[in-house]
């Protein structure tokens, strides 16, 4: 059986260089639907670049990135945008739009689609914010009537939004009781803490009901408790909907907690000749048994003699 045919995302011999600096070399990776993959590795080894290749924000210097059978490099702007909407991306610094408040940030993707009315968007935003533990205080007049003129034509991806809009889900029902003065929807990103930014970023990534969620260092810069909250949210998101997830992290606790599979990348500059950049690819329970000292060193989080000897 060809693994490519069952993969949702497939990287085939992908290399990427920025000018003379090569970051990735001949990476081959297949991610089946529904899997939660954690990509681990030290800073600068190309983890974030790998995520951006998967969603077509970067184009490989060589090789192919295939998403759902389509080579992203061969898609036109419009089709690439359409495919990107099947992804949700939680950026490292959340990348919330500075000029917009929390509500408008989460609503941004929905408004771009121009498929839902203001009330449906408001309900969907409310639901997403409540899902990530940020109750809103803005009073909402529930409008149970379905949007006029859409009916059966609504795509699959919008069903949960519609459900939210019509108050059919538990979380929306719970949301009405969670109306508190601490609601964040009017706040600008600059007024939020790091953990809240990540949660709003996650709400925004979930807003379009994506099939794939890409998490870039979701717990970096957060305290241990907030890190665990984010880990729980990742697990909760996976349990609620049949998503494929790729979590880029250097936090082993996150990787071991949320992933079905772990891949460890290593910086090209320190690889021995002929070695592959992926040092480990397997289940989380197997990673501690890996004999490669570099994997063990990363797991233990030690600088170690190996690096000190080279003055790094």
């Amino acid at each position, binding site marked *: 059986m060809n693994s490519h045919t069952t993969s949702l995302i497939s990287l085939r011999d992908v290399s990427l260089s920025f000018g003379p600096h090569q970051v990735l070399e001949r990476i081959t990776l297949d991610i089946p639907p529904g899997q939660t993959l954690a990509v681990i590795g030290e800073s600068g080894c190309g983890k974030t670049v790998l995520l*951006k290749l998967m*969603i077509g*924000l970067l184009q490989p210097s060589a090789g192919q990135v295939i998403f759902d059978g389509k080579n992203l490099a061969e898609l036109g*702007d419009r089709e690439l*945008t359409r495919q*990107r*909407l099947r*992804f*949700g*991306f939680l*950026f*490292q*610094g959340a*990348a*919330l*739009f*500075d000029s917009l408040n929390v509500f408008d940030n989460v609503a*941004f*993707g929905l408004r*771009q*689609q121009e498929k839902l009315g203001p009330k449906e968007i408001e309900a969907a935003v409310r639901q997403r914010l409540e899902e990530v533990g940020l109750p809103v205080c803005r009073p909402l007049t529930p409008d149970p009537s379905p949007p006029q003129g859409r009916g059966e034509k609504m795509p699959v991806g919008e069903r949960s939004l519609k459900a939210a809009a019509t108050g059919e889900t538990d979380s929306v029902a719970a949301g009405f009781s969670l109306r508190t003065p601490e609601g964040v929807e009017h706040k600008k990103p600059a007024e939020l803490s790091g953990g809240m930014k990540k949660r709003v970023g996650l709400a*925004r990534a979930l807003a*379009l009901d994506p099939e794939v969620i890409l998490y870039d260092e979701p717990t970096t810069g957060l305290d241990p408790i907030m890190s665990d909250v984010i880990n729980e949210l990742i697990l909760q998101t996976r349990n609620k909907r049949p998503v494929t997830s790729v979590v880029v992290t250097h936090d082993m606790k996150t990787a071991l907690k949320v992933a079905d599979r772990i891949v460890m990348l290593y910086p090209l500059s320190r690889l021995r000749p002929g070695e592959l950049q992926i040092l480990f690819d397997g289940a989380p329970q197997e990673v501690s048994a890996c004999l490669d000292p570099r994997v063990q060193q990363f797991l233990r989080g030690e600088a170690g003699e190996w690096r000190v000897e080279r003055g790094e």
Partner: protein
Amino acid sequence: MATAGPVRARPISALGERAVHALTLLGDFTLFAGRAFRSIIRRRPARHTLLSSFYKVGVRSVPVIVITGLFIGMVMAVQTYHQFHRVGMATRLGSIINITIVRELGPVLAATMLAGRVGGAMAAELATMKITEQVDALACLGAQPIHYLAAPRVLACALLIPLLTILADFMGILGGALICTRVYGIEAHFYWQHTAAFVETSDVVMGLVKAMFFGAAIGLISCHRGLFSQPGAEGVGRAATEAFVASFVVILVLDFFLTILLVGLLQWLGTGACAL
């Protein structure tokens, strides 16, 4: 001896690198400009992005244009009065001041103010959005960054700069007239009569056409510098500086070539009309 070759070759290779870099930048900019124009033609930018850009570019530029326009007119009057007065042609000042303002000073002044006030800020804003991954986030949420960020800004610069130029022209004319008629005591009737005799509609239109090109150039250069900035605070600062410097240089270069082109066009139209 072994190192003589490389050492000698270094300045040449550095020059070559610079030339390649400059050509790459020019190619990037041309592609970017093409994509921005295509985006504007294919689909009008969203109303709220347009209005926000129009406000920032147009409304907020009004005070600075009013003040600089007024003073540039007054300075023109002070600079030219004594020479003209000496040869007994002070009443002709209206024509020389006003034709200079509508043809050159108004458009260039409005463009320079726009490049300084708006261009640098736009480049810094977009560069910050880029380095904080907000531009990537836009792309992930279904908005094409060039359409969402660059198109409204370029449109605002290109469409509003003619209005700002009219304002700069008006204030310059007013400033010149105030000094000439109120301070130096030139008879207002003759001042305006000479103005009307020499300043034609084509002069004003020429200024506005040039301004539109300046505006489009400022918008494109600033957005390009912002969206392709280097990372870090230094990258943002450099993007803002480069946007202003490049815009200013391009304004003057464009001014020269557009003036040649438009003057030639006017002459050709004039001869054509005479021949008919």
